[in-house]
């Protein structure tokens, strides 16, 4: 290879590596800000902000969805399979909301440690299958 070409090739390599390193450091520094939501363990451990809105993500605990009163208020527990947080929400739930499904809720903790949600989004997982297959995977009771 001609020296001029070699030099340009090295220069390109340096640019790509340099930008890569810069991006790595920047992303490391802002790692917490890039998290779209806090896990329930974070919230129980007190890592979540106390006085402002934040997002909480987790699985809806089976059998925890209750509708106290006759309104649209719904109460359920979220879990990351370690710690649970109780969530209250009044509003219309997305299609994919169901027990055992992952969701992301935006809201605040009240002084009783209950998360009062203003918005609930469903977080679907990476599994796709026909209903018959899903049925056959369920544990036989």
């Amino acid at each position, binding site marked *: 290879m001609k020296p001029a070409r070699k030099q340009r090739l090295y220069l390109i390599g340096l640019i790509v590596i340099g930008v890569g390193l810069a*991006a790595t450091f920047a992303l490391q520094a802002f790692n917490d800000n890039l998290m779209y939501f806090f896990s329930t363990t974070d919230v129980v451990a007190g890592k979540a902000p106390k006085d402002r809105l934040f997002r909480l993500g987790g699985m809806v605990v089976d059998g925890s969805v209750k509708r106290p009163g006759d309104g649209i208020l719904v109460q359920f527990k979220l879990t990351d399979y370690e710690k649970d947080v109780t969530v209250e929400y009044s509003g219309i739930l997305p299609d994919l909301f169901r027990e055992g499904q992952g969701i992301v809720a935006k809201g605040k903790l009240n002084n009783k440690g209950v998360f009062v949600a203003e918005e609930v989004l469903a977080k679907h997982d990476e599994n796709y299958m*026909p209903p018959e297959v899903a049925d056959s995977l369920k544990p036989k009771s």
Partner: protein
Amino acid sequence: MSIIPKPVGLFFHKMASPPHFYRFTGRLIPWLSWIFLILVVVGLYGGLVLAPADYQQGDSFRIIYIHVPSAWMSLFVYVVMAVAGGIGLVWRIKLAEIVAISSASVGAAFTFIALVTGSLWGKPMWGTWWVWDARLTSELILLFLYLGVIGLYGAIDDKRTASRAVAILALVGVVNIPIIHYSVEWWNTLHQGPTVSKMDKPSIHISMLWPMLVMAVAFKLYYVIAMLQRARTELVIRERNSQWVKTLLESI
């Protein structure tokens, strides 16, 4: 260059010659178009008719047959563009420069389609059109990178200079590609994790997977066809004063 077998090296050497490239791609494109057409019909029929509805999402999941191949292509085309741009920078091969810039608008279109289909699906499924999570945001940045490349190329009159400027921008933007790919693993996102590229086995039933793979190949062919068409036009414009283009124009 001894690692590359001689016939392959000879092929690329020949392809770097503009008149040869023009003639060869002119013969290639009809063949590719027929294969593309067949694959798209098979893939869409498989995805929209044969594949069963999803156990959670029902029929809405079918948007993945457009969304996922577009998203894959948005990353793939960017890498091709950056590599071709880099080759153009180092070896000053005109055709590499042309392949790079001809990829930009096709890639931008794929990125746009991935963003729009995701958004349309997100409203009923997630409950929102858009969120600023790591996956969606980095994919949006990819669209801006493509648009930046197209804009920068158009802003510089001398196309050889423009190609060099564009190649540097494309190479700087390459850092975004692994970020998009791994965003769903590195950070909590609303977007789902990887389904197909999981190391063990894909978490999608085979009856739903095959049409998606057919569509992925179809989209790849579409990219090649669209990119080559643009490259041929760009080549003729750049070489308009050369003898082979004059001969070509006289023969029409």
